[in-house]
């Protein structure tokens, strides 16, 4: 457990939200209290799948201290969802998972609210529940959304029965190539569902003033929340202000519209502010945003020299009860079943199936860690079948500049192979180890996400400035780094700049803290706004100093003539009594071209913009007698283009790797036959603790990315979790002599695998 080697932040610069975070002064949403606020509680479905035959709220309404009760009958008759609009805010007629909300109450105290929620009377006609997401495709399976055909949906959605979205990735003729392959290897892998588990449970506070509402929410995506509230309550977006106090982590679990509208509806009915704070059980069961379970069946045809001539894959994913923002998961999984490899012919099918389980959504690099875990074990099986070292097989098959991706996207200069060589070097691959220890290697990839953004930079009369951005700080430091970028552009000190962020009333639309996009898109906008300010400062200073613009430079809070430091004017003087304000958005990069005509269910991930490329290697120790695995060390070599904030980037990798260790070994949501969670608590759903976390070493292959983020950058935050479980799995397989085919790879599963081969 040695210390991690990371570069320190620039001298003296501490993240500007740091002081409030270490003193306890900082306010998270649950820390807010408004005068007269009532406390909200939800009544959840009593069945995973049932028809509501009677819903009577009269006893709850009559309870002293109750100030509002809301059901779907009180709200506009609209459905919401991303690619498929399949859900109402409160259940109407049918409940489809255990965490579905039937009604909401608001009361003077939490105790009264809990009692009132219990007094709501609901009669149900139970319907057959489908929890097994493969069985959901069978012809006689109960249909979860009989009206699916009539729902509003994206034109690219291919839906059938319980399959909400069918997607394929197709290149060439995989069947013919497989038939002629020298060696064919097949492997089946199953990943259980898991959870994002931010340590802050979500909280929402809503307060109306006339027809306008302010909602404080622990969301990663305030603008998506605004859009969702506007749609579901039929209120103009201009009347809705979403403010995010400090956000206590998200990891994707706080993406999408999540309870802001229900709380706003309660506050409007109560005619007073209403506050909702989830307990840990609700944070597990009621959110529509967990990591999906996946069944993966891989088949790869390969030559004895290690050329991948064909790959066929069938993926079945558990969508859960509703679409939410996760309609694209099948297509994303299909790209990860190809992986960052050169493969001659490909046919991947992905079925994203409705079940009566909790809905799935984007959790850190959605679908990638599970599919990578399966694929990378499969690749080690392929290597074994042709008697080749698994690293050598990857060396021969990974993408590089000029290579073709799964849809014939041609890559610019990329560092995929360099990450492999660097990781292998860092871990000491091939060295002698005790017979209960081994090293495993896995590679992966993740796209950068292009989206619009916009920013303002204001300079005040005293030379200080403010950055106004729609970007959302989830803790990563991506927003906290923005003063460094602007200061460099304008010759200022980072501490001279404050940030106005996480407030939809202040800034332009932004995609939010998702898709590793904050520096990529919001950073681009902030730099464009700073460049606008720079132009204005140079114009004004050229007049003031009677100098040619080309001879001016911005240094130490002033504009001065190069070589004549006494001919200068401070930026505060240039701002004078007014404010200098710049704005910018920058150019959104286009999606790379590919031959995607043969693919169906396309949602924009059929090519990967500025792909982030990763190799990780894990050194593990396995107790064969008990199946207990200890991860001793993980090394991570990443190509995320140019790294603009080394300390922040390193922190993403170390955190992502530890999440990956949890996913690999202990984190799995266990369900009963009807889809009820059996371990919705931190006692039974085990995160990695400080004592269990491995030593982690990080390095970056820095190649300026074309048509990407600012200064040649790509995204950073999601890839760290992608190959960790795969690397651990490959190390375990080396010790026990066979693959562990279900994740999490619990002691019981590892022990059973070892026993199977007599290890």
């Amino acid at each position, binding site marked *: 457990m040695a*210390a991690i080697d*990371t570069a320190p932040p620039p001298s003296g610069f501490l993240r500007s939200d740091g002081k409030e975070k270490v003193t306890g002064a900082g306010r*998270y949403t649950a820390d807010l209290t408004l005068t007269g606020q009532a406390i909200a509680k939800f009544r959840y479905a009593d069945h995973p799948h049932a028809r509501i035959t009677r819903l009577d709220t009269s006893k709850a309404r009559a309870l002293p201290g109750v100030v509002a009760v809301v059901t779907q009958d009180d709200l506009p008759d609209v459905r919401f969802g991303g690619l498929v609009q399949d859900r109402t805010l409160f259940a109407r007629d049918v409940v489809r998972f255990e965490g579905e909300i039937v009604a909401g109450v608001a009361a003077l105290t939490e105790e009264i609210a809990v009692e009132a929620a219990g007094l709501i009377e609901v009669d149900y006609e139970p319907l057959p529940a489908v929890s097994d997401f493969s069985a959901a495709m069978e012809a006689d399976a109960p249909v979860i959304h009989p009206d699916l055909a009539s729902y509003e949906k994206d034109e690219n959605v291919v839906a059938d029965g319980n399959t909400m979205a069918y997607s394929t990735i197709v290149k060439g003729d995989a069947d013919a190539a497989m038939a002629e392959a020298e060696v064919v290897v097949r492997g089946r892998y199953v990943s259980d569902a898991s959870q994002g588990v931010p*340590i802050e449970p979500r909280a929402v506070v809503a307060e109306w003033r006339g027809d306008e509402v302010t909602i404080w929410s622990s969301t990663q995506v305030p603008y998506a929340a605004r859009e969702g509230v506007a749609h579901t309550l039929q209120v103009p977006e201009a009347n809705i202000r979403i403010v995010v106090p400090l956000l206590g982590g998200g990891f994707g679990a706080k993406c999408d519209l999540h309870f802001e509208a229900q709380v706003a509806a309660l506050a409007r009915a109560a005619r007073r502010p209403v506050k909702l704070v989830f307990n840990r059980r609700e944070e597990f069961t009621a959110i529509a945003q967990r990591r999906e379970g996946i069944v993966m069946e891989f088949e790869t045809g390969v030559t004895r020299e290690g050329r991948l001539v064909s790959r066929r894959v069938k993926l079945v994913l558990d969508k859960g009860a509703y679409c939410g923002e996760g309609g694209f998961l099948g297509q994303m999984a299909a790209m990860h079943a190809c992986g960052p490899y050169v493969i001659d012919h490909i046919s991947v099918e992905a079925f994203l199936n409705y079940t009566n389980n909790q809905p799935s959504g984007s959790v850190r690099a959605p679908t990638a860690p599970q599919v990578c875990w399966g694929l990378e074990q499969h690749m080690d099986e392929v290597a074994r079948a042709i008697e080749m070292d698994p690293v050598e097989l990857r060396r021969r098959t990974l993408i590089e500049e000029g290579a073709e991706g799964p849809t014939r996207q041609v890559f610019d200069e990329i560092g995929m192979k360099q990450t492999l060589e660097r990781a292998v070097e860092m871990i000491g691959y091939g060295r002698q180890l005790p017979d209960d220890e081994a090293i495993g290697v896995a590679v992966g990839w993740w796209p950068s996400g292009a989206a619009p953004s916009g920013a303002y930079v204001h300079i005040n009369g005293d030379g200080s400035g403010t950055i106004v951005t729609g970007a959302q700080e989830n803790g990563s430091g991506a927003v906290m780094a923005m003063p460094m970028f602007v200061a460099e552009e304008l010759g200022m000190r980072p501490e001279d700049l404050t940030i106005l962020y996480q407030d939809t009333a202040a800034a332009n639309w932004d995609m939010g803290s998702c898709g590793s996009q904050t520096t990529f898109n919001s950073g681009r906008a902030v730099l464009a706004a700073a460049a606008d300010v720079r132009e204005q400062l140079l114009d004004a200073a050229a007049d003031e100093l009677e100098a040619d613009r080309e001879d001016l430079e911005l240094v130490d809070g002033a504009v001065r003539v190069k070589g004549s430091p006494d001919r200068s004017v401070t930026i505060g003087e240039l701002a004078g009594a007014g404010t200098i304000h710049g704005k910018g958005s920058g150019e959104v990069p286009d999606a790379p071209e590919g031959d995607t005509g043969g693919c169906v269910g396309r949602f924009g991930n059929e090519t990967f913009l500025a792909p982030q490329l990763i190799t990780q290697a894990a050194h593990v120790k396995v107790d064969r007698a008990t199946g207990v695995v200890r991860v001793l060390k993980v090394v991570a070599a990443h190509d995320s283009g140019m790294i603009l904030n080394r300390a922040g980037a390193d922190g993403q990798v170390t955190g992502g790797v530890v999440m990956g260790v949890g996913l690999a070994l202990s984190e799995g949501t266990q369900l009963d036959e009807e889809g009820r969670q059996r371990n919705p608590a931190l*006692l039974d759903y085990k995160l990695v603790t400080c004592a269990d976390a491995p030593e982690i070493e990080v390095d970056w292959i820095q190649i300026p990315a074309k048509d990407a983020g600012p200064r040649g950058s790509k995204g950073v935050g999601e890839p760290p979790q992608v190959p960790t479980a795969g690397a651990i799995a490959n190390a375990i397989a080396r010790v026990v002599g066979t693959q562990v085919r279900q994740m999490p790879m619990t002691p019981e599963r590892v022990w059973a695998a070892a026993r199977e081969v007599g290890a």
Partner: protein
Amino acid sequence: MKTSATLRVNGHDFPVEIDPHLSLLKAVRDEIGLTGAKEGCDDSECGACMMLLDGKPVNSCSYLALQAEGREVTTVEGLSEADRLAPLQRAFLEENGVQCGFCTPGMLVSATALLRSDPDPSEDDVRIALAGNLCRCTGYGGIVRAVRSVAAGAGG
């Protein structure tokens, strides 16, 4: 039925009227108004609510407020004086031990207790002492470095 009690928190006495079943965490957050300690699980699993009780770390979510009467309670707000950060707080920032910050108050409290009982802990000592505090962001390395950087044996 509410009970009158006096809680001594961060060196100040606070008279409160509370239900006997109220947790120390809720009393300090809702009655006294110090919201630095967080509720992450209400189950003694995450450590975000950690406070010192006569110098010993406790999960305040699972401790009755009335049990703390007559004892010295310290929260994260009590770790620094006025506007000056304690060395441990500053080290958390300098060593990149803070991301979302939600676990930070509990981490700081647990680490403070450790350093008071063992001014020069080994890395393993630190990792074991903080094993009751979950962090989902950092991977723990920066936090461990921060604690060790202010330990008695740390150079510089």
